[in-house]
């Protein structure tokens, strides 16, 4: 459903999942029922025009139990957690903690996420942390390009970054890796 459809269509409430709001609240530790739906968050968000649901609409989806709509939407992945919405919010709701919780439910329930490329990017970032204890930007970018089968769109930028020594060939590493490895031991999604 795109943004316009979501505004114009009559919302089908027959498939509500009334446990969803509780689960989002449990994971995020955020009481989003204080939301006034004043849309200050949407007004402040610099990325809202690229979102299918405004930040407060995501909260509304959770409140109504429209789980599938929430889990498959793009907005939760487009959100960069810049917290601009949180400082605009008159109720002080940590909205990015709410979107994080919904992202994580979407991963656990293996739904087709709204922005698979962004999820892939995050997984690639965490793969390098799992391997080195620190991120390795060159590897993150190469893995991402490999996944996209797209070697050309950013070639100019990549070369510029290489010549300006912005992309180290070798990763910076943690020495004591066992603890880092143990963090990721049970994590199949990463």
């Amino acid at each position, binding site marked *: 459903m795109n943004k316009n459809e979501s505004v114009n269509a009559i919302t089908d409430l027959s498939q509500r999942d009334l446990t969803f709001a509780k689960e989002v609240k449990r*994971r995020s530790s955020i009481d989003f029922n204080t939301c006034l739906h004043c849309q200050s968050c949407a007004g402040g968000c*610099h*990325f809202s025009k*690229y979102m299918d649901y405004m930040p407060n609409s995501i909260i509304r989806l959770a409140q109504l139990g429209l789980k599938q709509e929430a889990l498959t939407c793009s907005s939760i992945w*487009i959100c*960069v*957690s*810049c*917290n*601009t919405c*949180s*400082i605009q*919010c008159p109720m*002080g*709701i*940590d909205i990015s*903690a709410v979107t*994080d*919780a919904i*992202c*994580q439910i979407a*991963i656990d329930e293996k739904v087709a996420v709204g922005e698979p*490329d*962004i*999820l*892939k*990017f*995050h*997984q690639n*970032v*965490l793969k390098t*942390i799992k391997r080195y*204890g*620190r*991120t*390795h*930007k060159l590897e*993150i*970018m190469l893995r*991402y390009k490999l996944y996209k089968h797209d070697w050309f*769109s*950013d070639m100019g*930028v990549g070369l*510029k*970054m290489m010549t*300006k*020594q*912005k*992309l180290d060939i070798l990763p*910076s590493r*943690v*020495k*004591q890796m066992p*603890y*880092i490895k143990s*963090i*990721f031991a049970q*994590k199949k*999604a*990463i």
Partner: protein
Amino acid sequence: MQRIASRNISYYPGCSMATTAHESNLSLLELFNRIGYNLIELEDWNCCGSTSAHNIDSQVALDLAVRNLFLAPPDRPLMVACPNCFLRLSHAHFALNQDELKRRKYEKEWGTPYNTNLKILHFFDLLEDINVFNSSSNEIKSLQGLRFVSYYGCMLSRPNTLQFDNDYYGLIEKTLTSVGGESISWPYYSQCCGTFLSVAKPDIITPIVNEIMQGAIDAKADCIVTACAMCHLNLEVRCNMQNPVPTLHLSELLSLVLGCSEYKSWFSRHLVDPQPMLKSKGLIQ
């Protein structure tokens, strides 16, 4: 009154400062050396987890951040220069202080009590606390004639639980105008640069970054000054305009004011060379 008494400070660089933004790291170390502080890199630090970890796995995010907190020596504050790392480590510190069960679990794993009084500082806490220009015996160069716009991006936007005592908007302006720089107000000072979307969604980021850059050009600024390595990277890498103004790390500019002449290895890493502009202002040779 100075709140930060210790001259020895643990320093957490984070992945960006340690790799893509070497120049920011080097200039920060230079700056602190010049004002008489000893930054001691946190031994064997690991990635804070960044947005990727807290987005897709809160447990991994907390584990990664907590490891750094347990590595921090108890006798001195821990300074974090990257705003995102600062937020992740502060969030973990808050969680350990709030949740005794969680704290006990980690204390058992690490075999040591957690230092709940650990002071986590951002670079701005020190900048607010001390007058950098009084703390150095070096001759101070004037920024007379330098028109700059301050770019905070989202670095000072924090969730409700992590709102701190100080609101640092205006600190870059206050610091640089005190040595003659001319601050120009503009509408983009707190607009987020888009951070990681730069890789997965460059089509979203380029117009945002171009708009910020156009804002600086319209303001007739000589440069943009930022204190975030991620903002710096996105402004340089994703802006596709013909004549962008250079973006400087605040630590680079402050080091130059304090007379540093070892800047070649910093500026050679900028995609938009700031040297012609800095030469024209008499800040470098």
